[in-house]
């Protein structure tokens, strides 16, 4: 069997492309159910904030821990090689960052908080996507833009907008990630 340098270079290129595609699609497949779960949580929580504003805090207080538990169960079922210490670190850092920012900024309008959290999530997806795969970047940018459109252009129905469009974007994003 004879292999030239050109053959070897072409083979290495094919291998790198295939490995990168395989890793990206594996990441998409793992992330998909998490996005669908959080899309559902957004839909329920923001609907609650729109129709029953007095219950907003309670709804989020119940749904956010449920979402985190859901994430753990999904990862468990997926048999992902998870670094649980890293997972706990990311969750704690995220909540600590949001809490610290809120305590500094003192938002007066609940819509500010309701827009801030998805913007942080959108930024996280965008940044992670630069390394993990373009689809995450697209989902992050879409979530961020939709949040800003709702906040500035549709402030009277912002919560409803986030329930339908923010939650919907995550669900659709999750379904998209499941596709090859």
């Amino acid at each position, binding site marked *: *069997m*004879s*292999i*030239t*340098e050109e053959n*070897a*270079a072409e*083979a*290495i290129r*094919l*291998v*790198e*492309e*295939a*490995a*990168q*595609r*395989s*890793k990206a*699609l*594996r990441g998409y497949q793992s992330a998909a159910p998490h996005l669908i779960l959080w899309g559902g949580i957004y839909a329920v929580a923001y609907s609650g904030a729109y129709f029953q504003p007095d219950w907003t805090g309670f709804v989020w207080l119940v749904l956010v821990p449920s979402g985190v538990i859901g994430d753990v169960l999904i990862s468990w079922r997926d*048999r*992902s*090689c998870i670094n649980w210490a890293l997972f706990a670190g990311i969750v704690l850092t995220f909540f600590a960052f949001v809490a610290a920012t809120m305590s500094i900024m003192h938002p007066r309008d609940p819509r500010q908080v309701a827009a801030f959290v998805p913007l942080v999530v959108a930024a996280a997806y965008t940044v992670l996507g630069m390394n993990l795969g373009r689809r995450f970047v697209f989902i992050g940018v879409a979530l961020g833009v939709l949040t800003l459109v709702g906040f500035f252009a549709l402030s009277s129905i912002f919560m409803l907008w986030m329930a339908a469009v923010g939650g919907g974007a995550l669900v659709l994003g999750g379904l998209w990630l499941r596709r*090859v």
Partner: protein
Amino acid sequence: MPDEVIHQSLRLRIMATLNALPRQEKMEFTRLRAILDATDGNLGAHLTTLESAGYVNVEKEFVARKPHTRVAITAKGRSAFARHIAYLRELLDNPPTANAVE
């Protein structure tokens, strides 16, 4: 030495795709086919070659009366793939004086 079983273009891509998965993880045949943009027959034939060499493991089972095929790279396959890639890199890093290598 190059691995003749692995070096064929589609088999190389099959091995690279499966090698990128975590250990013990299997990939569905339909997903692998879509990732590699291959036909059923072509992919099946190359998987048979790789399975005969002991490089991949093909599992067939029925789920809700539908055939379900999953493929995983074996430990032997990972070693052979790593050796073949090392050979290719060596060839690129230290090219022989002649253009072709036997």
